């Protein structure tokens, strides 16, 4: 008979925190794509082009940070693109109204920014409450609100385009086109949102509860977590992220229409998934989401710069990247 000490298995050396390919995979992908871009067309690395690429990634990136929380709980928000369009429309209408009283001043613009944040938070609250109180799948609820927001902005624009008053547009322009210490403002805001998102996710009880709910809804409930409240909060957070993205988007074109923000929800979700966050919830990689958003933007840019593939195939390439990224993650896990 073998005599084994009771603690035999316990003495097996504890593995230290392992270096994880999964965590830095998306970063490697960004670097690889940048090398590829440079090889295809050296102008890729020019300051002007890079600035453009990263700035473009800010919209979906900021929305995707919020989506990381929603997806982290195992839910989904399909309404973000439409909500961005609706918010843009409301901001423009509001500014065009205020300009009659306050003129083309920063007060006008800041009031509209506040409106956007309030609308975003309320939109998220509505999504969250209907999902939790109504006990309806998040996919279904946000599919519904996606249609509602989209149709509202089309109605507000009377089927056409809402244009921002020109003097206001001139004043507002630097929020998208301006720089601070040579860094584009949208990029700075993206960075701040990502840092705040990472702190919330990894350093607060809220973030822990988000992952707990995504990991197992029932266990979270039996661990005295107010599951509904946390879920509603993730939707409010998502709405605020949409509002922030809208605030930097409006000065870019100074207009909004029924096609504003079209497809952003899918790009945001794709950025989250490419970044390594699981669709079923329980894990969340904020840094991965940032990388995911940048990857999308780089691919579009490379296709523009090269003649090899028609840029009309942009969507096809993006689709392949999404599937490929998840496949790589799957295999590296096994």
């Amino acid at each position, binding site marked *: 008979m073998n005599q084994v000490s009771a603690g035999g298995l316990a003495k097996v050396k504890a593995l230290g925190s392992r270096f994880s390919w999964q965590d830095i995979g998306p970063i490697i992908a960004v670097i690889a794509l940048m090398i590829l871009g440079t090889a295809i067309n050296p102008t890729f690395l020019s300051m002007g082009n890079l600035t453009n690429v990263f700035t473009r990634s800010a919209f979906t990136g900021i929305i995707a940070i919020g989506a990381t929380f929603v997806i982290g709980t195992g839910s989904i928000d399909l309404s973000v693109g439409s909500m961005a369009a609706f918010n843009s429309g409301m901001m423009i209408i509001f500014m065009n109204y205020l300009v009659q009283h306050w003129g083309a001043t920063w007060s006008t613009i800041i009031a509209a920014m506040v409106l956007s944040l309030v609308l975003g938070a309320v939109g998220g609250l509505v999504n969250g409450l209907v999902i939790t109180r109504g006990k309806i799948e998040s996919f279904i609820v946000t599919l519904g609100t996606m249609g509602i927001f989209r149709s509202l902005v089309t109605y507000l624009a009377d089927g056409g385009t809402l244009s921002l008053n020109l003097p206001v547009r001139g004043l507002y322009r630097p929020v998208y086109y301006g720089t601070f210490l040579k860094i584009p403002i949208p990029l700075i805001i993206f960075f701040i949102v990502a840092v705040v998102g990472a702190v919330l996710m990894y350093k607060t009880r809220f973030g822990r509860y988000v992952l*707990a709910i995504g990991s197992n809804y029932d266990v979270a409930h039996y661990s005295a977590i107010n599951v509904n409240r946390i879920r509603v909060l993730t939707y409010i957070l998502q709405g605020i992220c949409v509002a922030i993205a809208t605030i930097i988007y409006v000065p870019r074109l100074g207009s909004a229409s029924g096609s504003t923000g079209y497809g952003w929800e899918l790009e945001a979700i794709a950025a989250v998934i490419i970044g390594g966050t699981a669709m079923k919830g329980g894990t969340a990689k904020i840094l991965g989401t940032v990388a995911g958003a940048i990857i999308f933007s780089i691919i579009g840019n490379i296709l523009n710069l090269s003649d090899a593939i028609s840029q009309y195939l942009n969507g096809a390439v993006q689709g392949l990247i999404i599937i490929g990224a998840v496949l790589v993650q799957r295999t590296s896990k096994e």
Partner: protein
Amino acid sequence: MSEFAIQAKKVCKSYGTVPVLFDVDFEVKKGEIHALIGENGAGKSTLVKILAGYHQQTSGELLRNGRPVVYHSIGAAEADGVVMIHQEFNLCNDLTVEENIFLGKELVKRGLLDKAAMRQRSGEILGRLGTTIDPRSRVKDLSVSEKQMVEIAKALAFNSEVLIMDEPTAVLTQGEIEVLFRIIRALRDHGVSIVYISHKLNEIKELADRVTVLRDGYRVATEKVSDLSEDDMARLMVGRELTTLFPPKGGPPKREVPVLEVRNISCPKYVHNASFQLYEGEVLGFAGLIGAGRTELMECVVGLRRRSAGTVIYRGQPLSARSYGDAIKQQIVYLSEDRKGKGLFTSMPLAPNVTILSLQDHLTRIGFLDSKKEDATLDRTLEEFDVRVPSKRALLSMLSGGNQQKIALGKMMQVDPDVVILDEPTRGIDVGTKQQVYYFVRELVKQGKSCILISSELPEIVGLSDRVIVMRSGVIMGELTGADINEEEIMLYATGVKGGMAG
């Protein structure tokens, strides 16, 4: 031909760098019931999963009917007649019984499903098992024991010669267990070999022909069951004398300070007008058959389930338990019977599992989560509860059932509870860990805390409780103290022969 249906020879298995099986030999004869026992983490599950093609051994070989085989998949093992029936069922709830039985191996005629043939075959097999389950009923409408029968039918539909059963009786009632045993014996008499994993040594004594004992990944014995007593088996499993399974009780109960007074709680369909008191420093056992409403009653008490009527008084004050969070703030905790479904986050690491109830105690000065404090709490818990883990960074799912349960207890203790409600705290864990849990409970009440123990294992209720309340169909049937706490008396109340006035 070999006399053995299946053999493992010098099988070793490591997960990553963690070895779990060491040179294990295991032989199952044709037409025998071979029990496999051992403490949690001894390697039972790993061994049978290798036999059934879920995992491949790191070294060593498998022989089937004397010939070396390699099963690269579950399907390969099944095709070779080796089938495993899980503790948790692998059935599709929304499909019918017959669809489940033939899942993945549907009978086909001219490219279309041959439903008539499948229905007939299903009926035959279920008939052979002596059940009256309708092959057309949906699995979700079946009782737990009926689902078990469907699992067995599924295995039999393909002339399995080796049937591996992992804790098949864990969720069955006494009557259902008898039916199952009759079927298992009949299968053996037809030449089927059965590998039977269980923690219930009395069952093994009653059912099995031979028994193999594993401990810490080694085989320590293979004997005829008739040559061993239950005590012998327990000793072989833990490698030491199990002097007393239960700690001595705390003497005659004082019953001076009522800690918890539950008055007239009702919950539609589950609990009817239940009242009881819990006193300081006692273990109050809740006995009854499965489905007697004990879990639901306690969930009402702590605010996990909405009640239609009733009040709870905690230390003289009404407990406003609108949510479980309120109860926890008052230091009342509840350990769920469903460890994996409701108790612990299996896909998360250990530290967040232990600290989820007490994150407010694991913050830095500015209110962020403090991973150092969390690690320290985990270290303390592993030490206090003697938890065996492959690594501190391991995911919870990598721990054996008993060690998971210790983590669940550790999680609960982080809120420094005054009232501890334990729902089936030893379900599916080995006798050594059970003993640790019992001493832990006794130690708690010695410190002046109070404990409610729900258990369907009568020896546990009898051995640990200072007072026992018996429930039946949502109603409190009676209360037992002192010498009245014995299995016969409890069963009289649990089956409705005695009692009936709401306590």
